[in-house]
């Protein structure tokens, strides 16, 4: 160990020792600053700079995009949402929307047609009668709302992947984008892998009855691997697309993938 010599002529030893002690807080202070600097960097990373809230918002939305990628990465197309016995069904199943039931779309099933657009071979529109003729399956799964509550329901309809095959959709496309009849034009993008998930369903019935107005008559998209807001109701069109077209809640800041 090298010795550092301090030759200070004409200085009292005691005073010198006092001075030496004074340097010690500096020593520890430097250690503290070194520790503090990393905390400072951390503050930048977490967007804690609440004074400039827009930079925090930018950072948060970037993390949300990162979370989209993480969720897409861990999404297992073969992992099934748990199913339940009929006895587990939540009664009454809650109506939930950003408006009252009285303001829910009142669709006339005779006039309604499902519009099909985008990267599909057959762009013909589908009447409700035509859709009802497609093979249907029933699932009893848990609907989980972005708010945290959940409810178990029984949905019957055609697996979306069967319909996509039927219309000759390009399943290499990135999204199926749904538009709805809700006031203010509800819409939501669904990533293709989730659209092709075996439990993703074009739903026409709830609890074995024609889908009531409260739950999205005439057609709802049931995606048990997504949060509730990614399960659009009152659907009027679907578009197979590579473009991210945004969504009603997604545009307001809900995480876009929102997978479960």
């Amino acid at each position, binding site marked *: 160990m*090298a010795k550092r010599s301090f030759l200070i002529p004409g200085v009292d030893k005691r005073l010198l020792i006092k001075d030496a002690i004074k340097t010690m807080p500096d020593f520890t202070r430097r250690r503290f600053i070194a*520790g503090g600097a990393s905390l400072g960097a951390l503050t930048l990373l*977490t967007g*804690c700079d609440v004074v400039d809230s827009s930079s925090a918002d930018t950072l948060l939305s970037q993390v949300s995009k990162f979370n989209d990628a993480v969720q897409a990465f861990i999404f297992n197309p073969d992992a099934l949402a748990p199913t339940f016995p009929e006895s587990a069904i939540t009664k009454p199943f809650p109506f939930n929307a950003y408006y009252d039931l009285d303001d829910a779309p009142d669709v006339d099933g005779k006039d309604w047609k499902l519009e099909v657009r985008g990267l599909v071979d057959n762009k013909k529109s589908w009447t409700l009668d035509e859709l009802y003729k497609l093979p249907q399956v029933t699932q009893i799964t848990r609907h989980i709302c972005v708010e945290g509550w959940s409810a178990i329901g029984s949905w019957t309809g055609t697996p979306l992947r069967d319909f996509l095959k039927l219309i000759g959709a390009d399943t290499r496309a990135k999204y199926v984008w749904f538009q709805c009849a809700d006031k203010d034009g509800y819409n939501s993008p669904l990533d293709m892998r989730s659209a092709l998930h075996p439990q993703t369903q074009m739903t026409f019935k709830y609890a074995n009855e024609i889908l009531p107005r409260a739950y999205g008559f005439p057609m709802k998209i049931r995606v048990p691997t997504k949060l509730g807001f990614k399960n659009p109701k009152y659907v009027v069109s679907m578009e197979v697309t590579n473009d991210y077209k945004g969504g009603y809640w997604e545009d307001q800041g809900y995480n876009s993938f929102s997978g479960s």
Partner: protein
Amino acid sequence: MASLTVTDEQVRSTPTKVIQPAWVRVMHWINALAMILMILSGWQIYNASPLFGFSFPREYTLGGWLGGGLLWHFAAMWLLMINGLAYLITGFATGRFRKKLLPITPSGVLHDVRAALTFKLGHDDLTVYNYVQRLLYAGIIVVGVLIVLSGLGMWKPVQLYYLVMLFGDYPTARYVHFFCMAAICVFLVIHVLLALLVPKSLRAMIIGR
């Protein structure tokens, strides 16, 4: 005229020994920040659909609305999880957990609780945790693991189904998540109060000694 020589050893050994190593201090404060962000944004999320007959006051929530609270929660979770994982690995690998937190004996805890309640619990040597501290610090690590596991389960109830199963089902995981938060808040109050009562422990967590 005498010359005075100071060796590096002397400079280094003059201050009291390190109570909290640098990694503990850095991870402690990152965890403190992450926990506060998680709690305040978590209260925002709770308010969207309260489990019980109360809501958290708006001014103590983060994010402004549910969507904002979720963005904060799912951003701060990375900070909490990565830091927490690094803490667990380092704690086990360096033997710190074993040395500092074990053993925890019922008689030791009873003795120290009694001593604490009669204000006879000494803090002369901050490098040795008393039994109350051991129990609280070990307990809060377990709670921390539980809150992350229940949170991950709620985030991915299909992909991480086995995590949800660990707690029973999705609604149960939600309650577990809530009560772990409550336990952390109680810990936080006691922890901060005791740190203020024994300021040298706070100093040790900032400058190490």
